[in-house]
């Protein structure tokens, strides 16, 4: 699978949110989108999964433009985990089974149940399968929401700040799950994120957004203090701890 985005622009109430966005992502890659609040990260993800329709440009999955795809076809190929979700009292099992909706006909099939059970096992959620979502911790809920999008069996997974409200342990667990599915299932994953250190540890590529435009697309190893300073408008010091590069804020520039 390859996602190709070319010259995408989106305006809201006359204000340009995205302008001339273009990039590509290949099978099994993780792309982290970085930018300040209001840079257009969430809007970009919503355009990529078809929730918003760009005013200009094109988005292709392989040879197919997503704007031309049927809703259910698109949902079979692209999974989306939003920043916010509504609190419901459905069980964990039902919540993950809901991800099978794009594949369902009139009834739930054996395959739908099998895929749901497999995801419950993979995410270690079996013991809480019958518990209502409202009784889970923030990290557990995030796993369920990711599980639901995995049940879609997509080629491309989009996640909007999936670790922003989680403690460190849960952040690492969620990112391990995402790198695992990218590697083992061949999914392409696009994640928006504010935590540069987590991004530096897990991302294959960085997409730097500034004022709704692509500032740069760079491999993890090429991210520099200067680049972060320019995109995030904050002075940072970059160092190395063990095998990992870390970023420490210095002072606002």
């Amino acid at each position, binding site marked *: 699978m390859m996602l190709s985005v070319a010259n995408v622009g989106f305006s809201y109430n006359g204000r340009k949110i995205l302008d001339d966005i273009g990039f590509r992502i290949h099978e099994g890659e993780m792309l982290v989108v970085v930018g300040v609040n209001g840079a257009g990260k969430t809007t970009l993800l*919503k355009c990529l999964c078809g929730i918003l329709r760009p005013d200009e440009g094109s988005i292709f999955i392989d040879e197919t433009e997503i704007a031309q795809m049927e809703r259910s076809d698109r*949902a*079979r190929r692209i999974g989306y985990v939003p920043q916010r979700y509504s609190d419901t009292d*459905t069980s964990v099992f039902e919540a993950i089974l809901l991800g099978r909706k794009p594949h369902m006909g009139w009834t739930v099939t054996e395959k739908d149940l099998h895929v749901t059970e497999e995801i419950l096992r993979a995410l270690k959620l079996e013991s809480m399968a019958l518990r209502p979502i409202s009784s889970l911790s923030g990290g557990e809920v995030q796993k369920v929401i990711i599980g639901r999008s995995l049940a879609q069996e997509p080629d491309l997974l989009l996640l909007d700040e999936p670790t922003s409200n989680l403690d460190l342990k849960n952040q690492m667990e969620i990112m391990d799950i995402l790198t695992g599915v990218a590697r083992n299932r061949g999914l392409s994953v696009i994640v928006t994120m504010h935590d540069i250190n987590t991004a530096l540890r897990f991302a294959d590529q960085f997409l730097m957004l500034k004022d709704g435009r692509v500032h740069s697309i760079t491999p993890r190893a090429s991210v520099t203090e200067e680049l972060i300073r320019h995109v995030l408008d904050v002075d940072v010091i970059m160092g190395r701890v063990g095998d990992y590069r870390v970023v420490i804020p210095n002072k606002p520039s």
Partner: protein
Amino acid sequence: MQSLLKNSLVSPFTLGISHGAAFGAAFAIVVLHAGTPQISALRTSAADLVMINSIVLTTVCAFLGSMMTTVAILLLARIKKLSSQAIILAGIALSSLFVSGTILIQYFSNEVELASIVFWTFGDVARSNWKEIGITALCALPVTIYFFLKRWDLNALDSGDDIARSLGVHVDRLRLMGMILAALIASIVTAFHGVIAFLGLLAPHIARRFVASNHALLIPMSCIIGAILLLLADTAGRTIIGSGTLPVGVLTSFMGAPLFLYLLMRGKNV
């Protein structure tokens, strides 16, 4: 309707849809002469005071009245992006508007017509005959089947509009179709039986206690519980006083109003 607008306080009564239908029906009965007041010496209930001699005209006017409210609510929810509480407040404002309209019609009606409208708006199943029950069932059955077929779409909508869209649900079409069909049923029921308050609020809430929010179970369970509640209220209305019948709408109000206040005070999932 609660899932479509993601608001557990929503029902045809709390949104003002029933009042819109009542206004439309009263307009048809008095202004368009679709109803003929009947005074019978042998009457056993208030229902006998009213005979609707043009069921189609009354139902159409009730439907138009309910649709005016539905469209106003949908526009406010979509364009102004009203919060859950604000939608209910808008419903209260629209209810007041239609109640005032109904009062205006009453003001210009003669004494017999006035009595007819007052008794008619009580909400009473005693006036139903098999023909009306048949028409109601004929309309309610396909609508219930439609909602049952859309059960997974409604489950997705419970998780939020964005998640529903990402799962392939045509959210705007589902919400519009669902509200139109719900308003259609509310208007038919109101045209035949008057305003039966809070039943649409009570039934899904009690059903959720048994089957949570999975619409595959919630839809049939709400239908069964709604029917049982109506039967209980009607039976109580027939037996609670020595002679005559208490309108069922009064009894459902006694049950529903405390629940509404409880949900409002709890402030969770509203």
